[in-house]
């Protein structure tokens, strides 16, 4: 009973956090999507007469070194940064989850080849693989997304595989097989639902990391290229002007921090909600 009484407030606290985070994320996405439909300023239109302006009604966050509206660029930057991060994550999931399902359920040669490949990929740190791949493919946001997909799909496939391995030993899967269900159906109807929670946890915790990776790579010039309004790239472009206009450094940075903070909060909630290992431990 004591365990329960300790756990309840914690779960509640996290649910509150999660709801807050969710609401904010939905709000941000709505704002980012809305920007797409209606832009007050051209995000890449340079206007040297209006450079480095302070706050005003027309430019709520001022203008940058090339006279572009900072607020427009921030909002569009959110689209870029979060959009590309989500794209990378979803593609990695679409490759990793089916692969893990097949590899874990069918075993055999596919599984063995995959395990070796996974070992090799996981031996290398994410950032190094991303650098190596974008090095070989050339700098650019598309290649960076490709690199992230190549790094991340392995860990999803691994996770799914290990869950499936454990799950397919259970009786209900055996019964399903005896009843003549096709492997495809077993995987989809019986195994996939068990996997979803774990994948959701890992994915939500990964999203923040991917956002950080994309913005960092864009900052060092290997991701989004100027004049594309990506948060990391914006910081890179504005760096010579920080001394006179520190806001140009503050806005994109705060934007990254707040979005990553929110996704991490959501990830923590999912982890508490779905983490089977933790429940067993308690």
């Amino acid at each position, binding site marked *: 009973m004591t365990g329960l009484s300790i756990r309840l407030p914690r779960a509640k606290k996290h649910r509150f956090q999660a709801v807050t985070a969710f609401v904010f994320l939905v709000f941000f996405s709505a704002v980012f999507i809305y920007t797409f439909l209606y832009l007050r300023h051209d995000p890449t239109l340079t206007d040297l007469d209006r450079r480095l302006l302070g706050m005003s009604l027309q430019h709520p966050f001022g203008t940058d070194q090339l006279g572009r509206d900072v607020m427009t660029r921030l909002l569009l930057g959110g689209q870029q940064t979060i959009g590309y991060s989500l794209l990378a994550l979803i593609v990695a999931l679409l490759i990793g989850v089916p692969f893990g399902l097949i590899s874990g359920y069918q075993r055999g040669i596919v599984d063995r080849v995959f395990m*070796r*490949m996974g*070992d*090799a*990929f996981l*031996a*290398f*740190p*994410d*950032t*190094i693989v*991303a*650098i*190596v*791949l*974008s*090095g*070989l*493919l*050339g*700098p650019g946001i598309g290649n960076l997304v490709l690199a992230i997909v190549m790094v991340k799909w392995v860990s999803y496939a691994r996770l799914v595989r290990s869950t499936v391995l454990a799950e397919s030993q259970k009786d209900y899967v055996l019964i399903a097989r005896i009843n003549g269900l096709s492997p495809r159906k077993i995987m989809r109807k019986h195994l996939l639902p068990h996997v979803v929670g774990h994948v959701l946890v890992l994915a939500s915790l990964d999203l*923040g990391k991917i956002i*950080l990776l994309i*913005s*960092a*790579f864009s*900052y*060092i*010039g*290997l991701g989004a290229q100027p004049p594309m309004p990506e948060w*990391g790239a914006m*910081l890179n472009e504005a*760096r010579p002007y*920080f*001394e006179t206009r*520190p806001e140009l*450094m503050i806005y994109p*940075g705060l934007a*990254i*921090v*707040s979005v*990553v*903070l929110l996704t*991490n909060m959501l990830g923590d909630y999912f982890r508490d909600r779905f983490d089977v290992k933790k429940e067993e431990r308690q």
Partner: protein
Amino acid sequence: MLQIVTRKFFEVLFFVLFITFVSFLFVRLAPGDPVLTILNVDELSVSQEQVEALRDDMGFNKPLLVQYGLWLMNFIQFDFGLSYATGQPVLDMIIMGLPATIELAAGALFVMLLVSIPLGSLSALYRNSWIDQISRLLSILGAAIPSFWLGLILIDLFGVRLHLLPTMGRDGIISLVLPSLTLGLAISSVYVRLLRSSLLDSLSQEFIRASRARGLSESRIFFAHALRHSLPPVITVFGVSLGSLIGGVVVIEVLFAYPGIGKLVVDAIRQRDYPLIQGYILIMAIIVFIVNTCVDLSYRYLNPEMKLKERETK
């Protein structure tokens, strides 16, 4: 032990073969022609004959697999050729940059230890006190703050406004302060929490109570028993994340214009300097191999149970 070393070796070998082959294909199929890249360095116009001659010279007219085989032979012999951008041997450039990177990584580790051991210990000893709350807040923020942005803030504060510390280049130990601080702070958020939970775990163990019963002083119990007992899990995680430290160095080096191999490779990527990139891959493979093997071996040293388990499963 030999088994582990060979297994790690083959993992890394497989990765390198895979990535170099894919890269080889991409480089040859990529839109940017390396021959033109070399010839266009001085912005002079080149004739078609010159292009063809150089292409022949570099073996680009041979079949793809033969090219890869030839290139691989050189690669294994640490002969990466000359950098397209500077004309220097790639290996020399990497060896020049390596000590700077190692210094930076060591500096970051030092900062990490300096932050996480006291903060982790205090938040475990005074659980749920204000210091614990602050360290919790810092670690949540630390996980969300991009390291390069932290670096920018530190540069702005200590370099630009207070004129206290150099913000770029590598000129004595003083120029190491800001980069190490940035990277060290960025990685320490994980370890503060980890050390805290590990300490809480060992502080609740029987042997601590036994030490108290024996009348040992609190500080002695903490340093000689609890802290020592809490370190192995921290070291384990540290081993795993040593890789991300190697990766994190790259961004910080670019940020501080610090002449290590990370900045070298990013410049190479911008200039499409493929020999240098390929040299970097091999050096990284070697480093990752050494690090992974050491980590794996140290697990077994720290945790003898693993050896027993392996024997059982056989």
